[in-house]
């Protein structure tokens, strides 16, 4: 009846997961009670959960990513603590079976359920606004994408309470991840969670490529799109090309595990090297799926806060596309030590280095964007400069790893761990923090507290370097990754420094929460009525903060590369706005519970597959499919926003903007 699921699956006898489970459940219950007491459920249901508004969906992605960041960080600090304690004769406080779950969960969560939702969240929020349009191409699918991602996150976290998570690392290499060596449900949790969220990500890719290619404001030609939109396009093209590979690879491993196939097994003609190739055919582009939008964010931030257009815009676009294409030709550099031979290694090594060229060009273009500017050291600009300083070192160590004979001595070492954290924290996380500060006022109509924001930045910047520079050194000493126990007592000082660094990052995360709460409490002091708090250059700053559901009363006419900046300067010069356009009623998509219901059934189905409860799995699958069919057959798709409402809102916005621009023109 319940497959493999018995009471033994609950970790009653293991204090750490048990206490964590209880605390998390209590926290969830407390939040639910608080929402109930304030009668916010219907608001949440109407405004967020069932919303097809790209901005609301973006915000939900970002909230999911930030919550999961806390989970992923908890794993990180536990690992650092274990490595500081389990040295020499001591075995620390985590036995291997627990420690191995933690590092596997840390990697899986940080990539799939922190970095991806955050990056996708910002693309959701920003791209349609920057393109000057009302929504993405497929608003309901967008909602489904989010809920499938959330469903994957739920399954991963469920493994904490029921059963166990994978102990095989974040990529679950076979044969270790095969049934013969990992008979438990851990790898199944991993596989099923990623399959479910992978569908969501693929749908996002389809959605955004369609949006960017087909739906742009009049006059917004490709070479007038903001660089963030270009990087979003490149990133989503990579999603479309790479995520099916992930789905197929994980499906093959599932066939091995569930139906006794032999794709990657030791016997029956299986070949585990195939998995290594396939997973990295997805895995390497994945890095660029994350970092390209980050580059887009830095481009927006550096240009805005230098008060200048981005230097070498076309060069940037070309560099972005070059990275997009080359990133598919380098996957083998993740396993030079497999013995593929000198020619193969050399070709992939050189291909990997070539990516350094367009990336280097980007750094120089940001540098020359600052040149001749008026640089404002706001919080996002702190992250941008911090990124430029630390990313070049990450790039250096990356090129070193791309040289096969160097990789032969640092592969899989803590040097590698330091390298990829340097590019992911220094590149992606800094960008996310910059974007969070930069676009927060657009989403909520008030800015975040600047002083606390800078404190958070310094925590991340100092904490990161303390946490990971020692790992480079240990890598030179021959320290490898994923060690539950440290054999060499002389590593202790460096590991302790790394622990302190991680704790400082933890302080930064805590201060982010404090900053948010404090900023909400004192929001009246930093309210932004103009919709343009940073003197922005792209179209999202044209509309109100927060923008109405339909974003723009009339789609803006775009002339030139900097759509909003040009328009703003003309208005300031002439001390008047463009002529009031003809307002029309606006059709907007209806809210729909499709996404959340589909994701509910997908979660049920996934959970049932993990525990071999086949009747429930079929029920979940049929349920999810039926909801889609039901959705496809409905009659009403859109609602009309009456012209009076559009006009009234637009006039109000014009009045505010006129006042704002008039003040600006006076001050010039």
């Amino acid at each position, binding site marked *: 009846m319940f497959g493999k699921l018995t009471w033994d699956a609950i970790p009653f006898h293991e204090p750490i997961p048990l206490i964590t489970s209880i605390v998390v459940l209590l926290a969830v219950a407390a939040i639910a009670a608080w929402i109930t007491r304030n009668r916010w459920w219907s608001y949440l249901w109407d405004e967020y959960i069932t919303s097809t508004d790209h901005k609301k969906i973006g915000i939900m992605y970002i909230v999911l990513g930030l919550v999961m960041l806390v989970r992923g960080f908890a794993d990180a600090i536990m690992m650092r603590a274990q490595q500081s304690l389990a040295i020499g004769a001591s075995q620390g406080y985590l036995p291997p079976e627990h420690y191995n779950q933690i590092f596997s969960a840390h990697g899986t969560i940080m990539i799939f359920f922190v970095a991806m939702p955050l990056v996708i969240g910002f693309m959701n929020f920003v791209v349609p606004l920057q393109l000057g349009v009302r929504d993405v191409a497929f608003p309901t699918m967008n909602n489904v994408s989010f809920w499938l991602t959330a469903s994957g996150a739920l399954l991963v976290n469920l493994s904490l309470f029921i059963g166990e998570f994978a102990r095989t690392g974040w990529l679950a290499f076979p044969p270790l991840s095969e049934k013969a060596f990992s008979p438990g449900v851990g790898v199944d949790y991993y596989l099923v969670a990623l399959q479910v969220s992978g569908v969501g990500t693929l749908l996002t890719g389809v959605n955004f490529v369609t949006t960017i290619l087909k739906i742009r404001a009049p006059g917004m030609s490709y070479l007038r799109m903001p660089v963030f939109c270009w990087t979003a396009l490149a990133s989503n093209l990579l999603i479309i090309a790479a995520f099916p590979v992930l789905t197929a690879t994980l499906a093959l491993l599932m066939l091995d595990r569930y139906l006794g196939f032999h794709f990657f097994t030791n016997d029956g003609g299986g070949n585990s090297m195939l998995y290594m190739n396939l997973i990295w055919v997805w895995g390497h582009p994945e890095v660029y799926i994350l970092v390209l939008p980050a580059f887009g964010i830095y481009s927006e931030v550096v240009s805005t806060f230098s008060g200048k257009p981005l230097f070498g815009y076309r060069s940037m676009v070309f560099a972005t596309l070059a990275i997009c294409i080359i990133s598919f030709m380098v996957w083998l550099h993740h396993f030079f030590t497999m013995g593929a031979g000198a020619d193969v290694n050399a070709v992939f090594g*050189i291909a990997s280095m070539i990516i350094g060229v367009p990336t280097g060009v980007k750094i120089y273009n940001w540098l020359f964007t600052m040149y001749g500017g008026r640089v404002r050291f706001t919080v996002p600009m702190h992250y941008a400069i911090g990124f430029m*300083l630390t990313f070049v070192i990450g790039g*250096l160590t990356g090129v070193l790893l791309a040289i096969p004979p160097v990789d*032969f001595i640092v592969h899989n070492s803590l040097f590698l761990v330091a390298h990829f954290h340097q590019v992911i924290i220094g590149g992606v996380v800094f960008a996310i923090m910059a974007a969070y500060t930069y676009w927060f006022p657009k989403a909520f109509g008030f800015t975040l507290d600047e002083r606390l924001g800078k404190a958070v930045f310094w925590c991340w910047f100092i904490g990161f370097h303390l946490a990971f520079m020692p790992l480079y050194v240990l890598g030179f000493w021959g320290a490898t990754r994923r060690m539950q126990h440290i*054999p060499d007592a002389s590593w202790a000082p460096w590991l302790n420094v790394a622990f302190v660094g991680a704790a400082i990052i933890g302080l930064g995360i805590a201060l982010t929460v404090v900053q948010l709460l404090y900023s909400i409490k004192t929001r009246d002091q930093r309210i932004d009525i103009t919709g343009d708090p940073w003197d922005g250059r792209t179209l999202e700053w044209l509309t109100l903060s927060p923008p109405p559901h339909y974003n723009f009363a009339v789609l803006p006419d775009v002339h030139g590369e900097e759509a909003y900046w040009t328009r703003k300067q003309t208005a300031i010069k002439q001390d008047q706005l463009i002529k009031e356009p003809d307002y029309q009623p606006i059709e907007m998509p209806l809210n729909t519970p499709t996404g959340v219901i589909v994701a509910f059934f997908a979660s049920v189905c996934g959970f049932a597959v993990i525990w071999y409860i086949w009747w429930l799995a079929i029920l979940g699958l049929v349920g999810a499919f039926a909801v889609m069919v039901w959705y496809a057959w409905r009659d009403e798709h859109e609602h009309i926003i009456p012209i009076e409402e559009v006009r009234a809102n637009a006039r109000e916005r014009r009045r505010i903007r006129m006042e704002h621009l008039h003040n600006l023109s006076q001050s010039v």
Partner: protein
Amino acid sequence: MRRIAIAAVVSLLTACNRGILDPVGPVGQAEKTILINSTAIMLAIIIPTVIATVAFAWWFRRGNAKATYRPDWEYSGAIEMVVWSIPALTIMLLGGIAWIGSHDLEPSKPLPSSKPPLKVDVVSLDWKWLFIYPDQGIASVNQLVVPAGTPVSFRLTSATVWNSFFVPQMGTMIYTMPRMTTRLNLQADRPGTYDGLSSHFSGDGFPGMQFKVQALPEDQFAMWAQGSRGQGPALDGAAYAELSRPSSYVKPMTYGSVAPNLYDAIVANTGPQLHLPQIAPPKRQASAVPAGG
């Protein structure tokens, strides 16, 4: 503060006689040289870039009245030319290093030497290392003994899941994979004891897969090999089945004889249930020890 930190890092890096920065053989030495040269080449452009980032940001800060504001300056063909050329030229240089280095240091390539290489077959087990010396007819667990100054030619496989064979001070690591053989050639010129490990995660006992490499002067190595032969237990089918049971932090030990073709049998089979040929007394006793031993 920063200067102190850098000084501390430099002193710790140079003072320590260990890891990949203190190679004891030609492979590790060549790899360290490439590591340092490539780092130096890249630092030559990275340090100016870092300085320029800080300098530009500071000089062009909003409050600086002396800086010229050029709000529309967004393109310069000459600068574009330079910013594409600098990384491109650097990568061409490093690409050349990578190409030559990959070929020179290809793990399967025999090392140039006047001496015939010592053959060692390596098997990673859950969770320990088995070293078989086919020419000496002996085997050891978690302890690799090699003659200093003589190339060692490894064949490597795994009995269960993937691992990676790595002796940081000797250089190149390589995966051990079940049912497959990888090849590796290393040499330790300086006699001494060096740490070895698995550098590819392989399950719960993984951190206990440390082993020691002893590089002995040639005559001492020959004495060790001779002394070990026939001493201690024999590595036959039963002993191998016992050894392949999962265990970790296993104490080094030596087998006085090895079933013939054990390595090939491990590559051909999977799991502990090996179908070994009938155990015969080691055949190669006489011809084994390298000349000069």
